[in-house]
C-alpha cells in the first residue's frame, strides 16, 4: 500500500479444493517464522469444490492493522490456469508486480497479448506445480509447490521458511512429500529466472 513500502501483498487465485486458503496461511506462517508480521485470509465465500476462490496474504515489518482485501497486490499466484480468461486475476497489480502461474506452458504461450509488456520479464513465471505435485504427492494439489516457486520468484520469504511451514502444516510423510514438491518448484523457478536473466544479458 502507499505510504508503507515495507508491506508486500499477495493474492492467490485457484479453485475450491486446491488449497488456496491453506497456501495463504502457510505463506503467512513462513513469514511469521522469519520474524515478520503476516496476515492471511480467505475471500470468505461459501464456495464449493471447483468454484473460483481467492485468498490473500500480507507480509510486513510492522504490525498489520488493515483488514481490507488485497486490492493492489505485489504478487499474484494462479493455482489454476483455466481461470485466466474467467476472472480478473491481475486487478490492481503494478508493473513491478510478480506473477506465478501453475501451468506446464511457458508464460508467453498463455496469450496475454500486450498486457504484460511493461512488466519485468523475470517477474512473470510459470511453474508446472500440478505435475510436480503429482510426482511427489501422487495428488494434483499444487498449493505447497507454488509457495516454493513464490520463494524463488520474489525472495520475500526463504525456501527454508516455506519448507518448515509446510512440514508444520502437513504432518509426517505428507509433509515430507510436500516439502519435496516445494523444493522441486523452487529449483524450477530459480533456474527459469536464471534463464531469463541470461537471455536479457545476451
Amino acid at each position: 500500500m502507499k505510504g508503507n513500502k515495507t508491506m508486500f501483498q499477495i493474492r492467490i487465485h485457484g479453485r475450491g479444493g486446491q488449497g488456496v486458503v491453506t497456501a495463504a496461511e502457510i505463506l503467512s506462517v513462513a513469514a511469521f517464522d522469519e520474524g515478520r508480521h503476516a496476515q492471511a485470509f480467505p475471500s470468505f465465500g461459501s464456495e464449493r469444490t471447483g468454484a473460483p476462490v481467492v485468498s490473500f496474504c500480507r507480509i510486513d515489518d510492522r504490525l498489520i492493522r488493515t483488514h481490507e482485501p488485497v486490492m493492489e497486490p505485489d504478487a499474484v499466484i494462479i493455482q489454476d490456469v483455466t481461470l485466466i480468461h474467467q476472472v480478473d486475476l491481475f486487478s490492481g497489480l503494478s508493473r513491478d508486480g510478480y506473477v506465478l502461474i501453475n501451468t506446464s506452458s511457458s508464460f508467453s504461450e498463455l496469450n496475454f497479448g500486450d498486457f504484460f509488456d511493461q512488466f519485468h520479464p523475470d517477474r512473470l513465471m510459470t511453474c508446472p506445480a500440478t505435475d510436480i505435485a503429482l510426482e511427489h504427492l501422487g495428488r494434483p494439489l499444487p498449493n505447497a509447490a507454488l509457495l516454493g516457486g513464490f520463494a524463488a520468484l520474489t525472495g520475500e520469504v526463504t525456501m527454508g521458511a516455506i519448507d518448515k511451514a509446510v512440514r508444520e502444516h502437513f504432518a509426517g510423510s505428507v509433509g515430507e512429500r510436500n516439502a519435496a514438491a516445494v523444493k522441486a518448484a523452487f529449483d524450477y523457478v530459480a533456474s527459469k529466472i536464471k534463464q531469463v536473466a541470461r537471455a536479457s544479458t545476451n
Partner: protein
Amino acid sequence: MLRQIEGSRAIAETVALCRPEVVCAYPISPQTHIIEAVGELVKAGTLTPCEFINVESEFAAMSVAIGASATGARAYTATSSQGLLFMMEAVYNAAGLGLPIVMTLANRAIGAPINIWNDHSDAMAVRDSGWIQLFAESNQEAADLHVQAFRLAEELSIPVMVCVDGFILTHAVEGVDLLEQSFVDAFLPPYEPRQVLDTNAPVSIGAMVGPEAFEEVRYLAHLRQLDALERIPEIAQEFFEASGRDSGGLVRPYRTDDAEVIVVAMGSVLGTLKDAVDLRRDLGERVGVLGVTSFRPFPSEAIRDALKHARQVVVIEKAFSIGAGGVLSSDIAIAMHREETLLRTVVAGLGGRAITRRSLEKVLDDASDNELAPLTFLDLDHDAVDRERARMQATRRSGPSAENLLRDRGTVSQKADA
C-alpha cells in the same frame, strides 16, 4: 506465546484457558471454527472438566447455557446472525435472569436475502437485551477480551457478548500472543454465583414478576450495566498491567487530541481506518479515529469527552435501522448533545462489502470539504437501485428484488476482489 494463528483458533484456545465448565454449540458460519476448536480441546482432554454439548438449535444452545449457569457452572457458547435471532428469546432471558454467560458473536449480516458475510446487524438486533457488548478490533483483542469478559460477567452477574467481525477476523490468520494458563488463572478467579440451584439452599429462579416490581427489576439491570462502565476500564487497566497489552476498555481514541474530524467506528474496520488516518496526518490533516469497544453499556461520557473538540464527527456503521438511519450514530448524538458539531453517518460494509482504504479516504475527503451527506451509503451502486426502482414502477409483478439486483450486477465470481 506469540503464534501465527487463525482468529477463531485464538479465541477458542483463550476460551479454554478460562476453564468453562459447560460449552454448548450449534454450527453457523462464520462461528463454526471457534466451536470446532473448543470441541476438539474438550475431546482431547486439554479442557477438563468441561461438558461440550452439541445441541439441536441456537435456541437450545443458549438454553443449555442458562441451565448450566444457574447451576453455578461457567458457561460459554458462540453464534452468528440468524443463530443469534433464533436464540433471541433466550438471549433476553439470560440477561433478565442475571446469568453471566459469555458468548462470542462472529458478526454476520441477517437475511433475507441470505448472506453469510460480515456486518453488525446481528449485534444491533440485541443491543437492548441487557447483555454487555464488547467489539474487538483485532484478533489479539478478540482473544484478550474473552478473559476480561468472563471476569466482568461473573463480577456483575451480567452476560457478555464479545463481538468479532465474521470472516474478516474469525478466518484471518495473524500473529496473536496467547495468554498462559497461569496468567488466566490469576486474572480470572473461580466463579462464585450470586444465585445457584442448590439442594441445600433451595431458591426459585425465574418467578413471575408483575407490574408491582418489574420496573424496579429492569432499572436495577440498568444500574448494573452502569457499574460495568466503571469496571470495564478498571479490568482493562489491570489486564494491561499484568500482560502489557492494551486490550478492552470503553473507547479507543487514536490521534484525536487535536483532530477536527473524528471518525467513529467499531470492530475490524478500525485498523484500516487508522492506516487511512496516518496517511492524512502525513499530509498535515487533523483527523483522528475513535473506536468504540463497549457498545453496551454505552460509554456516553467517554465519547463526549473524546469528541468535544471535533468540528465534525463521522460515524461509520456496519448496520443501520431501516427507515431511520444509523444506530451507533443515534447513541453518539445523544452522548454528544452538541449542536455545533456536525454529525455524519456512513453506512458501510453491509453483507461483507469490503471497506477499502480508498473508499475511506474518499469519506475523509468529503468530510474535510464539508460535502458528506447526513446519511451516506458507502460504495452504493445507485444506478442499480434506480434500475430496480424503474422495473418495479414499470410492472406490478417485477419479481424478487434481490434476484433482480443480482442479475443486474452480474455474478460475484467474475470480480477478483469479491
